[in-house]
């Protein structure tokens, strides 16, 4: 594990947060999907800057400290919650346009330098919780393989969900036995995802037929006209600023390409272990869960997502060098913004696909919560055996009892960090003997 972040990472983190903060100041893009819908009133001047600031802060603060910080400090990899939720807020708070990128850059600098410092400190301590966190990637990859089955069960019923789970399991078994070159979890995930896509498309056509059989066409057209007029103006606004988004795409693609920035909740741990191909696969499926949400909120508000459709993550993980990443990133963001209105129009007619996207996000959360909890408890075990399990699991359960101030997914990693600090103090006090490194 490298102790310090390379200069390229430091420079592009600061550039990214600075530019993201500028975009947020201009109400052109925010990372928080919950803040975006409010930007409509903000750029139309009906919502004043102080009110908008308090909305942005209220919706984001919990995710910075309850999700972004624990994932970053337990993986030593940067993530969008840590970088772009604060840049959203700083951009909106900033009273002057020139001040926004300066505040954003300052935040980027604070993050890269403190993350570098914590990482090097952690690796020199008697109990190394960063090494222990390597336990995370196996449960993530193997459990994540079942998220498509969970999504199918949520949307299309128990029977189809069970069948999909059995097929995924069979694929996992076959690959494990006969194709050792491929990761069995990744193959099972792909199989489940294909089944999900087939069922969703099939259902979409079936619904379309039923809807046509029923009357009420007139009513539907009314709704469409109304929707179109609201959305067309917003899509036009975004297209006007196309070059701005292309710059954001280029900067972000370079940062993602360094493999020191993980887009999804689980990807940071896969990147930390050098597992780039699987990280790309995980974030590609995750993108399918976000595209309709990003498109809908973008055309409804006239503001885009700082990280776009999130397709930039899997692409930039795999590109061979930063220069190519910058070019592809710029083109991708340009294309995304350009086709936004067409995508929105298409998606507004595909209700099953939109639902499938929501269930994908829900199923990812559900399976990741299990995987990350298991990985965190395994990390506790690797650090300190039974007492490590007790501390990590205990903190998770307490967080539930407290009404979940920390997002469930991050409660395990928070437990690992607290356990790491605790056992180091105890080791210095000669109350705890560190386990031999495995």
């Amino acid at each position, binding site marked *: 594990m490298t102790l310090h972040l390379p200069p390229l990472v430091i420079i592009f983190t600061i550039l990214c947060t600075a530019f993201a903060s500028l975009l947020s100041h201009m109400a052109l893009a925010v990372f*928080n*999907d*919950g*803040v*975006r*819908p*409010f930007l*409509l*009133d903000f750029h139309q001047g*009906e*919502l004043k800057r102080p009110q908008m600031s308090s909305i942005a802060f*209220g*919706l984001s603060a*919990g*995710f910075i400290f309850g999700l972004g910080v624990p994932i970053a400090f337990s993986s030593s990899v940067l993530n969008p919650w840590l970088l772009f939720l604060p840049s959203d807020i700083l951009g909106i708070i900033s009273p002057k346009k020139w001040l926004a990128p300066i505040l954003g850059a300052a935040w980027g600098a604070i993050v890269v330098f403190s993350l570098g410092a914590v990482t090097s400190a952690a690796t020199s301590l008697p109990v190394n919780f960063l090494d222990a966190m390597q336990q995370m990637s196996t449960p993530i990859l193997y459990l994540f393989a079942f998220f498509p089955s969970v999504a199918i069960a*949520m949307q299309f019923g128990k029977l189809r969900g069970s069948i999909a789970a059995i097929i995924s399991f069979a694929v996992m078994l076959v690959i494990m036995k006969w194709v050792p070159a491929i990761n069995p979890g990744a193959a099972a995930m792909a199989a489940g995802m294909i089944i999900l896509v087939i069922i969703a498309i099939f259902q979409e056509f079936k619904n379309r037929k039923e809807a046509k059989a029923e009357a009420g066409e007139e009513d539907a057209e*009314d*709704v469409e006209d*109304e*929707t179109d007029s*609201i*959305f067309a103006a917003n899509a036009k606004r975004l297209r006007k600023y196309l070059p701005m988004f292309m710059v954001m795409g280029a900067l972000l693609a370079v940062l993602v390409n360094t493999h020191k920035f993980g887009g999804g909740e689980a990807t940071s741990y896969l990147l930390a272990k050098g597992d780039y191909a699987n990280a790309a696969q995980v974030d590609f499926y995750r993108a399918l869960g976000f595209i309709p*949400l990003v498109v*809908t*909120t973008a055309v*409804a*508000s006239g503001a885009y997502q700082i990280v776009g459709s999130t397709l930039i993550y899997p692409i930039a993980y795999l590109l061979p060098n930063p220069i190519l990443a910058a070019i592809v990133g710029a083109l991708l963001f340009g294309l995304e913004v350009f086709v936004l209105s067409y995508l929105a129009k298409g998606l*507004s007619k595909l*209700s099953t696909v*939109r*639902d499938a996207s*929501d*269930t994908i*996000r*829900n199923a990812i*959360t559900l399976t990741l919560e299990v995987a990350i909890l298991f990985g965190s408890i395994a990390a506790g075990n690797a650090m300190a055996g039974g007492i490590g399990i007790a501390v990590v699991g205990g903190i998770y359960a307490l967080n539930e009892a407290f*009404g*979940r101030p920390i*997002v*469930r997914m991050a409660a395990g990693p928070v437990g690992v960090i607290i356990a790491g600090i605790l056992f180091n103090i105890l080791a210095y006090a000669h109350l705890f003997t560190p386990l031999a490194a495995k």
Partner: protein
Amino acid sequence: MLTIYVGGVGKVDVKRLLEQRRSPDLKIIASSDLEAGPAMKRNKDAYYIGTCHTGAGASLGAMLAFMGRQKCHTFGRQSKLTTKDVHSLLDSGVRAFGLSIDQINAIVPVLVDGLQSYKEKGGAS
């Protein structure tokens, strides 16, 4: 009759939770922000509950564009709510509510209790 459209990531959970109440004057429709928005403009007696991870993105989403910000409220990841809070929101004209998916069990029952008691009293508190 109280009509509630439910949408967003956790709509199946919210629908199941509300159907367990077996309340005869409660009509639950699984929908989405794009479909419920225009429908709520026509039916002045309908409410919307949306859920997602932030409590505002996929929860409210296009609802803010359809209904206007004044008629939408997000509870975010808030985990405590009283009937009185709900009544004062309803007094101010809010009809679309967003909340975080991991707080469904804490917020939704109180919210719907509030909606029903508000209706029984016949409006303004």
